[in-house]
């Protein structure tokens, strides 16, 4: 296979991954790494590098639309980014020590966990009692609803901060956005409305991934000729995906994609354990 046909195939794969990532709400990264390693035989370190770069692109692309709608909470996002960026540096450093097989197994487990998390029903917790810490941090805000701006409270910043460090660690270790875990930290632990959690999470993903990017670059994970078709595919793919998501009902599509991701997760674990990654 020539570079030209390889590049075109990877570009198409990136397009599909972006679409899939946006429709399942998991982000393109969770699909890119299995796609490149399992189907294209790319070394997992190059796959992590290309995936991380595409994560930055989709996060920034999507967040540019969300921030202006007034859903995301910039204060909470910025504060929690301390946790995610520090975690990301730890995770990215771990990739230089851990054997590729172990990274693949962890990747597979996170895929299984994420597809479970993304199947959760969105729900808002109406009665949240703010604690003293959140009042001190002035994190309370409002968000737009059909009935006008609605105020919300925030609780348990410390718990959210802890889970965010783990999300950052996995982001750096696996070249993904860790969106599902970030949303979990915000809506379940910190009690934020679901829409605020998802948009703030998306807003944080780019900064988190940028923290790993320096370490990835320094270790040669970012192969430009591979990252190029991935980024140029994932970006329009995810934009298309979020447009479809806004329109018709996508329950059947989501189910198919969730099953695909489950299968990819199992495949990654199996390959990692059986020595398919060197």
């Amino acid at each position, binding site marked *: 296979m*020539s570079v030209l046909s390889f590049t075109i195939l990877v570009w198409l794969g990136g397009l599909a991954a972006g679409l899939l990532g946006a429709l399942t709400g998991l982000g393109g990264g969770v699909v890119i790494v299995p796609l490149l390693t399992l189907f294209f035989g790319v070394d997992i370190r190059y796959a992590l590098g290309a995936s991380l770069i595409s994560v930055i692109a989709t996060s*920034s692309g999507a967040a540019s639309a969300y921030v202006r709608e007034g859903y995301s909470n910039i204060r909470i996002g910025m504060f929690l980014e301390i946790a995610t960026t520090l975690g990301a540096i730890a995770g990215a450093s771990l990739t230089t020590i851990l054997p590729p097989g172990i990274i693949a197994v962890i990747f597979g487990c996170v895929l299984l966990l994420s597809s479970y998390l993304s199947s959760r029903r969105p729900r808002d917790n109406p009665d949240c009692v703010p604690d003293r810490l959140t009042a001190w941090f002035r994190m309370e805000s409002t968000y737009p609803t059909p009935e006008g701006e609605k105020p919300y409270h925030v609780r348990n910043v410390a718990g959210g901060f802890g889970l965010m460090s783990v999300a950052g660690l996995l982001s750096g270790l696996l070249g993904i956005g860790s969106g599902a875990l970030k949303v979990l930290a915000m809506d379940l632990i910190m009690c934020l409305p679901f829409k605020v959690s998802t948009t703030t999470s998306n807003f944080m993903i780019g900064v988190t991934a940028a923290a790993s990017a320096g370490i990835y670059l320094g270790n040669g994970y970012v192969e430009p000729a591979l*990252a190029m078709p991935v980024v140029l595919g994932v970006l329009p793919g995810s934009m298309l995906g979020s447009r479809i998501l806004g329109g018709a009902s996508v329950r059947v599509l989501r189910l198919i994609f969730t099953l695909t991701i489950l299968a990819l997760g199992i495949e990654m674990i199996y390959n990692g354990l059986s020595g398919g990654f060197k």
Partner: protein
Amino acid sequence: MTENRQARLDQRLEVIIGYTLRIGVLTAAAIVLIGGVLYLVQSGAAVPRYHTFHTAATPSDNLSGIVRNIQALNSYGIIQLGLLVLIATPILRVIFSVIAFALERDVLYIVATLIVLAVLLYSLLGHGV
């Protein structure tokens, strides 16, 4: 500061951040596309070799190598420039946030944002060079 004024400033900050992100991503994608086309024209017929990982730090991979590639204006350098613009976009967003919180005289969030910025620069300059 009144709640109202803070909300207004927050709103403006959000608009600026939205535009920064959009312009950054589009610029980066355009540069990567130009470099990519050039790369395919020059080496489209070659055989790809990403199956094995080539060393942890070949000179062209780290930041100083990237700067050399960019100066040489070869296709790798142009793609790498686009990728750097992409990585710089969220960092620029954090820098804007520092300025915005400084305008609001919000010491708590100036400190929080500066910590994030320090971590980002540590990663990029401490490892990437």
